[in-house]
């Protein structure tokens, strides 16, 4: 255990497999056995068809920036020394949209349509937080 350097996500009952996989820097997502769609965020039922048979499987995590906002003030006091940073919504090739932060380039250079790939930031308890960086 190290000291947290950002607000670290709590673990909801249903999302334990997600967070366990992040310990190995693996992205897993739920898929609905009934309608075969991918589900985000983790749930006990599929929001597309109401099915309750959901299976975790590996995802690629690459995607394209759908929307982006550069934060010039920290959303949490622990991030004060990181501004400006880019918060984005990314449409994953896996078929879902996630909130993320795009790092590895200047925050102002992150743009809609930009291709990004997963990168991970280690949390204090050994889990990793999904982030993104430019693909090329």
């Amino acid at each position, binding site marked *: 255990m190290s000291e947290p350097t950002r607000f*670290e*996500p709590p673990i909801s009952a249903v999302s334990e497999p997600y967070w366990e996989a992040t310990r190995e820097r693996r992205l897993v997502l739920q898929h609905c056995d009934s309608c075969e769609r991918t589900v985000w965020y983790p749930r006990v039922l599929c929001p597309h068809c109401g099915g309750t048979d959901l299976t975790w499987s590996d995802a690629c995590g690459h995607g394209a920036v759908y929307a982006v*906002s550069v934060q*010039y003030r920290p959303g949490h006091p622990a991030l004060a020394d990181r501004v400006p940073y880019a918060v984005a919504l990314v449409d994953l090739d896996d078929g879902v949209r996630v*909130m993320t932060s795009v790092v590895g380039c200047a925050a102002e250079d992150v743009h809609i349509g930009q291709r990004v790939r997963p990168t991970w930031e280690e949390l204090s308890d050994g889990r990793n937080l999904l982030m993104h960086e430019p693909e090329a």
Partner: protein
Amino acid sequence: MIRQHSVRGAAAVVGVADAVSPDGVLQGSLRALEVQVIREALESAGLSLADVDGLATCTGGMMMPSVELAEYLGVSPVWTDSTQTGGSSFEIHVEHAAAAIASGACEVVVIVYAQTPKSTFKRGGARFLGGLPSGGADIDQVPRVEWEIPYGIQLPIGAYSLAASRHMAQYGTTSEQLAQIAVSTREWATLNPNASLRGPITIEDVLASPMTASPLHKLDCCLVTDGAGAIVMTSAERARDLRQRPAYVLGAGTAHSHSMISQMPDLTVTAGRESGAKAFAAARLGPGDVDVAQLYDSFTITVLLALEDLGFCGKGEGGSFVEDGRLGPGGSFPAQTSGGGLAYTHPGMFGMFLLVEAVRQLQGSCGPRQVPGAEVAVAHGCGGVLSATSTIILGTEATL
């Protein structure tokens, strides 16, 4: 397909009141402010607390706002509503109340709101930090804390900024066009002595104000002030015997599409498309029939999306629609005539003040900011992060 049971014209707003001060600070407790505006609204109609048999509110108390307030007031409602959808709560209360009055469930409804975030902050109280759970909820029930807050997004502004970024990329909307909404709204505020911000501004002023979450600037954002407001509704039949010119509820519609911004299906389309269509259908009117609009202006982008989603202009055309200043005084589309959440007041849920101003415009009591001949008004609330909308269309006797 939803079958519309129209309650068109069956109920009316017969009294309104608000408490807003130019410095944004109100004296007195929340209960004192609630009592003040309730009494004022009832008295303006020629009614008293003894007439009230329905009560709606969505803040205050421990967990049952309308029940706790009713006890304090000494009333025993036969109809009650504590529905909480953020900024659109009071439009939903009006929709529910109109249906209840039309069905005979109750006869005189009071809807009330008071919050004093500015006073609380001045006293050193906690400021809204953007969605950390306050206790009592399971993490499963507040997914934002697990999937959004860790990324350091400022809420609510960051969510609205994401929507603005998408609209700009998809439709070419510019920061100047968004700024024009703030400029036009400020022009109205110069005509309202109770507005917090009364000095005129330019597009350059908006663009030069600090950017906290791109692409929105400080002057694209609403105020944080104290404020209180109340609305009294009754049946059309009883309304005709009261003191004020009734503002009849012609149509109402509500919809929500998501709770947190990362779950919004399309960041350029709000649930207003559905709530607006339902309201206009019930009113048997179209966007072209509206004389004065009160659209929720938590941020300039909120207005732009509402203009498109309610059909005042086409999708993607909001920027060019507003850029000639038509939303301002003397313009062809008067909107947010109080000065809005951007310049009049914004205690957290501006939906109450949208309704108060819409009714005052129909009563003809707005003084220098009166829109001449206003017969049809729309109040469009938007709560959460573009999450929950409710659209109310009000009209004078001539529109029935």
